[in-house]
């Protein structure tokens, strides 16, 4: 009846993930940001804001902030590291497996939204959408 994989959630909480959770890279405000978006997980209420400086179609700088769970913070940290210097096109082409590759842990299906909120928000920021209303 169910497709829920039987891996333990504990497998997600590897040292490298928790280290990033405790000390995320690229965390905070970005002065002079050209692109910004506030993403939202309606399921749990978590939110994350991504700010970018994009010049000549390439990411010059990126920061994120928010109060998220370990999976969300770690994935956003890894992702913001990954995209520095990349073209906006390359960013828009990123998909779920790319995030999972970066994280190097099994993500239980319940937690997919946590792991992908960073990418979703990043892509919306790159697309130039404005932050959501409820600031």
């Amino acid at each position, binding site marked *: *009846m*169910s497709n*829920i994989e039987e891996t333990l959630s504990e497998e997600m909480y590897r040292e490298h993930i928790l280290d990033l959770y405790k000390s995320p890279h690229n965390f905070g405000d970005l002065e002079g940001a050209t692109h910004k978006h506030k993403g*939202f997980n*309606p*399921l749990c*209420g978590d939110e994350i804001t991504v700010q970018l400086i994009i010049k000549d179609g390439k990411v010059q700088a990126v920061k994120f902030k928010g109060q998220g769970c370990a999976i969300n913070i770690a994935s956003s940290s890894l992702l913001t590291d990954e995209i520095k210097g990349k073209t906006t096109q390359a960013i828009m082409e990123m998909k779920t497996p790319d995030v999972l590759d970066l994280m190097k842990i099994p993500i239980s299906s*319940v937690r997919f939204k946590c792991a992908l909120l960073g990418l979703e928000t990043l892509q919306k920021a790159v697309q130039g959408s404005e932050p959501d*209303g*409820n600031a």
Partner: protein
Amino acid sequence: MKIDNSRAKQLRLDFPILNSNKNGKPIIYLDNGATTQKPQQVINAISAFYETQNANIHRGLYKLSQEATEAYEQAHAFTEKFINANPHEVIFTSGTTDSINMLAFTLPEITNGKNIVLTEMEHHANLVPWQQLAKRNSMKLKFIPIKDDFTLDYAAAEQLITEDTAIVSIVHTSNVLGTQNDAKRICALAKDNNAISIIDAAQSIPHSKIDVKRIDCDFLAFSGHKMCGPTGTGGLYGKHDLLEELPPYKTGGDMIRSVSKENAEWNDLPMKFEAGTPNIAGAIGLSEAITYLENIGMENIEAWEKQLLKYALEKTQEVGAITTFNPGVEKSAGILSFNIAGIHSHDLASLLDDDNICIRAGHHCAMPLMTKLGIPGTARASFYVYNTTEDIDALITGIKHTKQVFAKGIPK
């Protein structure tokens, strides 16, 4: 596999009530227009959910809740596939009445026009909500008339549906006459006039193959309990763009993306229209019912019910002094309304019940149609896949007996 008496009897084994006895006599159930019986598969699916998966959906991070969520979402997907809708185009409601009310409350925000066009054969569920809307918004109701052969007057429809028309909402299969209306044709008329088209499929979806893309309707409403599913279930199909445009109806938990004290943003489809904890077990039961019906084959079900109708029309004719209200096998689903001269339908129903023959008697929630026909009500036998010609024989025997009783009365 085509259905015949022996296949119908085999299917009947799945339905506990149809295999039970009351006062030592079997139950001959001919009130499927009101609600159908439930196969053991559906009953078991509901129990199994409560016994092994019960949890609230959407918000739980634990396996039980995740399983319940997956089962619920799968029920959505099955229902969408069943009527050839795209993903997220079906909203679960508590039934046809709920679905139509939802439209009557929300459509005004995305429509213009002064008229609402219905037919003279509407069930109250597809009439009273529009009367209320008409009163709230100073609109006018118009009715596509019925011809003497109990079919819609399509020529009149072409006159009635105009550029002033905001909404056209029609019954697909009449629950009184059995008439199968040409939904595609009416929806095309609506489209030509930029009106929203709505199909009340309460009596068609359980008995025939529905393809919303072929009909090209904007919305389509149905009930689960009339198609082997649980009570308190049903759906509203809507074209994706219209559902996006439509404001929400009920508001509360799960249908929002974010909420502040003063404001809320709506969630994606279908959640936007499914506020609060839905009927989770009901949706799972409905999806099991759909699987059950698809295994039999909707075309087979429709064909068999038409055969039963043909047989019933012939047999009632033989009895004599019976008026039928039916457009004939070609144009009708397996529903037969009739009256016996000098015998009120209530009295017939009561006497048939002595032999556990269950039919409906009265106005069938279609009072304006009764007024049009000039009668207070009818007796109605309505068939489903598990009925046999023997059930109709029993009905005919019961009718003959009733005539005898009324001829002389039971001696003191």
